[in-house]
């Protein structure tokens, strides 16, 4: 178990009273709850927060934490310090080290208890694990093989509480949708019974820079020039399967949709929303042409708003 400054984790002063600790915990728990939060590392923060609160909410545990915590040192630091000390004089284990060991015992004990409570199961079958996994849109489109790392709480041979990392290979089936689930039978916790639990993985598809996913359909905003929109054109369009050609009809309006059949996730289409854009750089010649157009077209784009065209 690594030393963490639980006050810092919760953004609290060392002198905070119990009521304040509870208030701050509630507030942060809502902020970082993985089901509610959109913060990138919400899950990690939420776990860290739970760990901090487990200790600080209990005045007795908190007192011990305060008492020993200051003596705790990172193993590497401790080693370095020992090296330094032994080079100066013979190293003798000081009071600080005893305190540090006592602190580690205390922390380990605290989380061992919690682990037992969490895993108390009334069922013969081992507990199921429910996990989440974020994949890219391309992974879903092409299918993929991904590794999922699970932190499984374990009590080791010395009775120390620790997390074992378990890596599981997960085959991502082609066309899996956002929030769909994969079940891996027998990959859950072992439990006391003979039958291991199952592993459920909720797949989340990360936002894509170009495409927006709606069920099996992909949506893409496609910029076109005013002349392409007016005259019609054949333009290149990116899809997940590569570039395709799309024929834009004459007099296409901004915001109108076109469908590329079968170019979405399996079973879906790619939808294209046309967006007329104008060049960002001014060009004298083009301006002249626009002026000419304005005088020829007699076009009032705001007719429906009941206002007159300035030039008319």
């Amino acid at each position, binding site marked *: 178990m690594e030393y963490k400054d639980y006050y810092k984790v919760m953004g609290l002063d060392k002198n905070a009273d119990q009521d304040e600790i509870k208030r701050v915990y*509630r507030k942060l*728990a*809502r902020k970082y*709850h*993985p*089901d*509610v939060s959109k913060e990138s590392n919400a899950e990690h923060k*939420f776990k860290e927060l*739970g760990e901090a609160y487990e200790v600080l909410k209990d005045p007795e545990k908190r007192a011990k934490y305060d008492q020993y915590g200051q003596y705790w040192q990172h193993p590497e630091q401790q080693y370095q310090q020992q090296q330094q000390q032994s080079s100066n004089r013979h190293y003798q284990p000081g009071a600080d080290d005893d305190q540090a060991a006592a602190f580690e015992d205390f922390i380990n004990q605290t989380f061992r208890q919690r682990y037992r409570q969490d895993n108390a*199961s*009334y*069922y013969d*079958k081992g*507990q*199921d694990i*429910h996990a989440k996994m974020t994949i890219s849109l391309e992974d879903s489109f092409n299918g993929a093989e991904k590794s999922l790392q699970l932190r499984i709480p374990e009590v080791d041979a010395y009775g120390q509480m620790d997390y074992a990392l378990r890596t599981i*290979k*997960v*085959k991502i*089936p082609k066309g*899996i949708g956002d*929030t*769909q*689930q*994969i*079940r*891996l*039978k*027998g*990959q859950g916790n072992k439990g006391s019974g003979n039958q291991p*639990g*199952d592993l*459920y993985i*909720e797949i989340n598809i990360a*936002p*894509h*820079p*170009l495409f*927006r996913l*709606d069920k099996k359909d992909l949506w893409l*905003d496609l910029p076109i020039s005013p002349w392409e929109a007016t005259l019609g054109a054949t333009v290149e369009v990116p899809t997940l399967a590569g570039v395709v050609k799309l024929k834009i009809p004459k007099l296409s309006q901004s915001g109108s949709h076109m469908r590329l059949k079968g170019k979405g996730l399996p079973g879906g289409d790619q939808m294209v929303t046309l967006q007329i854009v104008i060049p960002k750089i001014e060009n004298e010649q083009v301006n002249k042409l626009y002026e000419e157009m304005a005088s020829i077209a007699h076009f009032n784009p705001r007719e429906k708003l009941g206002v007159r065209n300035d030039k008319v």
Partner: protein
Amino acid sequence: MTKYEHEETWIYLSLQEVSCSFGVTTETILDIIDEGIVTAHINEQQEMQFDAEALRSIRTTLRLHQDLGVNMAGAALALELLGEIERLRALLPRG
């Protein structure tokens, strides 16, 4: 490859399986249904069947209750609002 032998993506679970999977009683699951948070399909044998979407909602409900002390009605509201946020966020332009 034996590793993927038991892999499934389309899952229907029975009431018993769902309650066992989350380590709660069947009554809790029935309470969640009564709150209108999930709808169970009924198969030909008149048994309840829960799909992936239902599993997701049940999981969130239980977590919100366990972690934040949110009751069923509160979880139902939170789920609806989260769904709405997700829908609106999807409409935002990219980049």
